[in-house]
């Protein structure tokens, strides 16, 4: 992952809102003014301040922050729904601010899909027509775009609902249509602006898992905005934490939970369960230490987290799980190992 191609490269981007934003930007670059001073002197609000992120091919990048942290502004800077005041955003190596209108439309239509918190399904169109909207705009013939939309709807499990109207669907189903609409145009990058925030907790979890699975299966990259750290950890390969327009820390869930950059992040991650962060490979014992039969045991990968392992144990009633990598047995996780892992004694249980 470290070496793969950077699809979105966002460097030192600022967004300042207000009538005197130009002067404010001058003062920020010239005199090094901070957020508070800018607000006092120019009456301008700094939405995003010196943000840099790199999104790599195949990666799900989460931006986590509370409301007003600037995360929704930041994601709109990535496809230029909002013009940056300062800094550079490159999509697939091309500076998006330098594009003319036609090139920008082309980039948005073919390379960057977007899913909104409000879903924004056109109420006058049925599910199929909504899903085909992106290709319709590109002038793709009806047969062809309907075929693509049907395929995308099948991926999100809505094949039976294609001729229904958005008002006939539940919130979760509507958001699936929103996702299918973004997938129909087959973009490399999908921007997700708090897509699941308005849904019931149960539906939300289900969609989170489905979304992650689908994105990985299709090899898409995604930028995912959320105010929920649990969601960010569940979905994201890497997470950036934002506060007051500033990105405080960027890293994997494990890095952030284990080494919070400051007190704010530390407070945030304090209540986070380690269940999803500790993986099978760090709690397993070697196969030789296991006396029982291996053949009858359920299997898992070294990357499976403790939560998933507990699930497997309780479902199958087995005493242990065999850890396999590329079809080869690499270790065994027993119930004892799991209990130690839950307590956080990952290293102690390994041997």
């Amino acid at each position, binding site marked *: 992952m470290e070496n793969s191609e950077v699809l979105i490269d966002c460097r030192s981007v600022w967004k300042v809102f207000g009538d005197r934003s130009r002067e404010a930007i001058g003062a920020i670059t010239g005199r090094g003014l901070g957020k508070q001073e800018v607000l006092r002197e120019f009456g301008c609000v700094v939405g995003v301040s010196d943000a840099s992120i790199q999104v790599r091919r195949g990666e799900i990048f989460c931006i986590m922050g509370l409301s007003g942290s600037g995360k929704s502004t930041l994601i709109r800077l990535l*496809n230029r*729904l909002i013009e940056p005041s300062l800094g550079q955003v490159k999509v697939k190596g091309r500076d998006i601010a330098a594009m003319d209108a036609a090139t*920008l*439309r*082309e*980039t*948005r*239509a*073919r390379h*960057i*899909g*977007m899913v*909104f918190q*409000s879903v*924004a399904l*056109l109420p*006058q169109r049925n599910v199929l027509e909504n899903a085909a*909207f*992106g290709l*319709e*705009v*590109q002038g793709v013939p009806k047969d062809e775009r309907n075929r693509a939309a049907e395929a995308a709807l099948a991926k999100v499990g809505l094949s039976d609902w294609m001729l229904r109207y958005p008002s006939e669907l539940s919130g979760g189903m509507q958001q699936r249509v929103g996702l299918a609409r973004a997938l129909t*145009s087959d973009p490399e990058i999908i*921007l997700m602006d708090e897509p699941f925030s308005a849904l019931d907790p149960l539906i939300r979890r289900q969609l989170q898992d489905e979304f992650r699975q689908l994105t990985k299966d299709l090899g898409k990259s995604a930028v995912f905005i959320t105010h929920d750290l649990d969601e960010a950890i569940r979905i994201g390969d890497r997470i950036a934490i934002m506060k007051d327009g500033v990105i405080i820390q960027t890293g994997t869930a494990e890095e952030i939970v284990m080494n919070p950059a400051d007190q704010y992040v530390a407070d945030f991650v304090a209540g986070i369960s380690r269940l999803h962060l500790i993986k099978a490979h760090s709690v397993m014992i070697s196969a030789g230490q296991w006396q029982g039969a291996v053949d009858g045991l359920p299997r898992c990968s070294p990357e499976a987290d403790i939560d998933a392992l507990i699930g497997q144990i309780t479902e199958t009633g087995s005493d242990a799980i065999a850890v396999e990598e590329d079809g080869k047995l690499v270790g065994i996780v027993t119930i004892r190992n799991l209990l130690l892992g839950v307590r956080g004694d990952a290293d102690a249980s390994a041997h």
Partner: protein
Amino acid sequence: MENFVTAFDTTIDNALFWLTDHAAFIFDGARALLKGLFDAVQWLLLLPPFYVTAALVGLLAWRVLGLGAGVATALALAVCAAMGLWTETMATLALVIAATVIALAISLPLGVLAGLMPRLDRALVPVLDLVQTMPPYIYLLPSIALLGFGPATALVATVIVAMPPAIRLTSLGIRQTPHEFIELGQATGVTPAQMFWKIRLPFALPSIMAGVNQSLMMAFGMVVIAGIVGSGGLGETIYGAIRTLDIATSINASIAIVVLTMVLDRITQSLARTK
């Protein structure tokens, strides 16, 4: 002050005379065009016998409103014929249709432009306010001076009165596209034309249809008033009945107007709701 007022009035009068003298061909042309449109619509409406027209309109009402409304519509129109006012009723309908078509041909594009261009909208609002505050029969005066007695004058005055609601509600509808759908369009990479046809217009349609319905109703009110300038139809019947104190005829004509108004109002309102 008095001199100034006299001078002002004289200038207006002279300007009007100048127009009738030097631009007569324009007004004669306009008069012929409007009269021709009115005659054509009226001829079409009177082509089938009254029971066929009544049945057809009843059928339409049945389709959009239901069986009861369909039967009531056909019966109510038959009553107009039974009162011996069929020709007048159709003449009024022809005026309303012709005036509304002209009014919409102007006000829908204008309303769309105003919806897209806030400056045009700001400029239009006071004009529309003025048009709507003036007593409607004011508009008969300049038209009668330039176009003379007859349906052409009635049409011009009716068009003026019928335009404001359609302009206002079209502009409002176009402006009120929810922000999230504008963002959706931008993020999907729509062209400005696609943004209008595929996103703004569908959301504006209910408001635009309400405007069409309002214009139609305004046109109805004005067409009756325009009886004074020889519009023909029920307005002129009522005007004649008032002058001769023929109360029975004026009531009959009023009933015919109510029937026509209600039928058109209900049908267009329901069409506006379904789409």
